[in-house]
C-alpha cells in the first residue's frame, strides 16, 4: 500500500510547459534560419570584408543578434532581407573600423574564390591580379554607389530588396547603380599610369 503524496510545489505549472514548448519552437526556428541563410549571409559579408575568417565572424555576430531578438521573429515579414540587412550593417561597421588599419590585398582569398578548373597557373595568377585591380577600383567609388553596386551583384536580391536593405527608395537604387556603372567605366578607361 503506497500513498501518493503530491504537493503543490511538486507540480509543473501548465504555463511553464507551454513556455518551454514555445522556447523549443523558437530554437528550432532559429536553427532553421541558420541552416537556410548562413551561406547567403557569409557571401554578403565576404563581398565587403573579402576575408573568410572575418566574414564568418560577422555571420556569427549576426545570428547572435537574431538570438537576442528571437521573440520577435514572428513579426519579421521577410526574414531573408532582414538577415541580410543585419549582416550588412555589421560588415559596414567592421569595414569602417578597419579603415584605421592598413589595407592588405589578400590575394590568396581571391585565388580561393576563382574556379579551379580550366586555368593554368599563369592564367590563374593573371586573373587574380585583374580581379584585385578591379576590386581596388571599386573601393575608390563613393560609398553610396559602391554599396549598391556590390549588392546588385547578388542575383537573388531584387532592386526592391536592395532598397529595403539600404533603407532607400527603389528609384534611388537605380540612379545610384547608374552612376556607379558610369564611374566604373570612367575608371576602367583611364590608363593605369594616369591614376
Amino acid at each position, binding site marked *: 500500500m503506497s500513498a501518493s503524496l503530491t504537493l503543490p510545489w511538486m507540480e509543473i505549472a501548465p*504555463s*511553464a510547459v507551454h*513556455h518551454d514548448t*514555445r*522556447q523549443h519552437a523558437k530554437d528550432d526556428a*532559429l*536553427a532553421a534560419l*541558420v*541552416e537556410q541563410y*548562413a*551561406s547567403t549571409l*557569409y*557571401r*554578403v559579408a*565576404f*563581398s565587403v570584408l*573579402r576575408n*573568410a575568417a572575418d566574414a*564568418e565572424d560577422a*555571420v*556569427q555576430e549576426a*545570428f*547572435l543578434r537574431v*538570438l537576442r531578438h528571437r521573440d520577435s521573429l514572428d513579426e519579421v515579414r521577410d526574414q531573408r532581407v532582414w538577415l541580410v540587412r543585419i549582416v550588412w550593417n555589421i560588415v559596414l561597421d567592421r569595414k569602417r573600423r578597419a579603415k584605421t588599419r592598413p589595407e592588405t590585398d589578400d590575394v590568396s582569398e581571391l585565388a*580561393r*574564390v*576563382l574556379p579551379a578548373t580550366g586555368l593554368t597557373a599563369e592564367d590563374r595568377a593573371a586573373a587574380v591580379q*585583374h*580581379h584585385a585591380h*578591379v*576590386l581596388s*577600383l*571599386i573601393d575608390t567609388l563613393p560609398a553610396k554607389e559602391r554599396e549598391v*553596386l*556590390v549588392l546588385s*551583384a*547578388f*542575383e537573388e536580391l531584387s532592386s526592391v530588396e536592395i532598397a529595403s536593405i539600404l533603407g532607400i527608395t527603389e528609384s534611388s537604387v*537605380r*540612379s545610384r*547603380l*547608374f552612376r556607379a*556603372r*558610369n564611374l*566604373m*567605366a570612367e575608371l*576602367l*578607361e583611364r590608363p593605369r599610369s594616369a591614376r
Partner: protein
Amino acid sequence: MTTPRWNDLPDRVRNAEETLRLMVTAPAPQGLAERVQARLDAAPRRPFWMSWNGPGLNGWMFNPVLRGCAAAAIVMVVAGGGWSIYARVQPPSSANNMPVPARIGPNGGFSNAGAMRTPSTLNGPVLAHPAIPAQENVVAPMASPKPGALTTRSKPATHKKQAAANPVR
C-alpha cells in the same frame, strides 16, 4: 533616368561586374552552419538577472516576480512619501514646553505696537468751577495760570517740549 542595360555597358564594366559576381558567389566554408549553431547554443539566452526565474513570455511586465517587485517598490515609495510628510507636519512629542501664544488683551486683539501713551496730565484738568476743599489731604488746586500762560497753552508744540523736559513724577 534609366539604368543602363547589360548590353549597353562597355566590356570592361561588364568584366568588373563579373569580378563582383565572382566575389559574391564565393562558396561558404564547410561546416559554417554547424559552427554558428554551436556558438548560438553556447551563448547565454538571457541576462543573468532575468535568468534566475525564467524568461517572461511577453516581456518583463508579465513576469509575476518582477511585477511583485515593481508593486512593492511603488508601495514603498508611496508609504515613504506619506511618512515623510506626516513626520514634517507633526510637532515633536518629546517637547516639555509648549509655546504659548501671546495673550490678547481685554480691549481687543490689537496691540499698541510698542507705542507709549503720554497722558496729558502735566497741565492738569481745568476745572470749570472752583473745588470746595472738603478734606485736608486734598491737594490744593493749582494756581490759575498767568495771563501769559494762555499763549503757551495754545501752542501744542511747546506743550510737548515741556512734557519731554519734565517727566512724570
